[in-house]
């Protein structure tokens, strides 16, 4: 049994882990659709996007490991941390729900990631800028794919609308966390590593509003609830997803394909 590794608390590493972990956990969630999506074509689309996200996570975690300078690679960072050392948004760890829930969440996350990657293309960190240049193309497609489904389902049948509205209501509770900024964000903006996430809020709201308008859905009011995955305090779902993900590396340390 492989023990856990501890976490580097420097701002740049934290900032990268927020990005890498958000991609990693959403990728894991999307991969759960493999073999279960409503139609074969969407099954493949979900698996494609899951692999895009895992690929982004690999690049960002590898880079985080390099900045740490303690010789830890993507696998060690992805599979050997304890729950509270993961820095993903709580939004992405929620169970995949029905198809409406999945595409609504994808629309919210892809819109955020697209805006973030667009800014990271100009990062002072050349490696991160390079990763962003590749990832932004993937995120643009993810957003288009998800938005297309939100519109179809929101402006669809009574049943699809009911499910889409329910998904939007639940997911919107976790929206404020996307734009919570803290000392990590301030420090990374100061060295031009990347933007404070709060600065993405207005463009994000504008893009989401246009998607929801087209889907004839009303944007919910912002809740007072604040989820805290970015700070390592996760929902009750996180432990289960980590158990799934980590089992193999914990049982067979260093195992590779």
């Amino acid at each position, binding site marked *: 049994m492989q023990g856990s590794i501890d976490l580097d608390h420097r701002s740049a590493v934290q900032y990268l882990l927020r990005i890498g972990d958000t991609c990693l956990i959403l990728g894991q969630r999307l991969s759960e659709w493999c073999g279960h999506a409503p139609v*074969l*074509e*969407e099954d*493949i*689309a979900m698996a*494609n996007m899951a692999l895009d996200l895992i690929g982004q996570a690999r690049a960002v975690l590898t880079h985080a490991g390099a900045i740490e300078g303690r010789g830890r690679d993507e696998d060690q960072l992805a599979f050997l941390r304890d729950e509270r050392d993961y820095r993903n948004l709580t939004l992405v760890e929620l169970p995949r729900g029905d198809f409406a829930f999945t595409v609504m969440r994808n629309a919210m996350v892809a819109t955020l990631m697209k805006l973030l990657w667009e800014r990271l293309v100009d990062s002072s960190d050349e490696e991160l800028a390079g990763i962003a240049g590749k990832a932004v193309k993937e995120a643009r*497609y993810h957003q288009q*794919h998800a938005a*297309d489904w939100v519109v179809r389902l929101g402006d669809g049948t009574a049943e699809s609308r009911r499910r889409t509205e329910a998904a939007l209501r639940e997911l919107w509770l976790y929206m404020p966390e996307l734009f919570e900024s803290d000392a990590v964000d301030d420090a990374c903006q100061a060295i031009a590593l990347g933007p404070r996430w709060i600065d993405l809020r207005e463009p994000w709201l504008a893009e989401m509003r246009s998607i929801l308008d087209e889907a004839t859905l009303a944007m919910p009011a912002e809740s007072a609830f604040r989820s805290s995955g970015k700070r390592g305090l996760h929902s009750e779902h996180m432990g289960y997803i980590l158990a799934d993900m980590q089992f193999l590396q914990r049982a067979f340390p260093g195992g590779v394909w």
Partner: protein
Amino acid sequence: MNQEWPLWEVFVRSKSGLDHKHCGSLHASDAKMAIQMARDVYTRRQEGTSIWVVLSEQIVASDPGDKAMYFDPMEDKVYRHPTFYRLPSSVDHM
């Protein structure tokens, strides 16, 4: 009411300058979805630079029963192949 999404034929162009080639079919509710799904199903391994989709029911096909009448008579007409010309050596690719 038919609940099944209509069938679309997918054509992918692998490189600029080449023709779109038929590569398969899929079900989608409309043209926009068909293009998106074709991208996900048929271009995942760098196969494409451009996609066409067309409703399968819009394709008019020859009747397999006409195969003998249509195609067999060409078997012994080798003179229709341009193999009896000697190409100038400066022409590389024909």
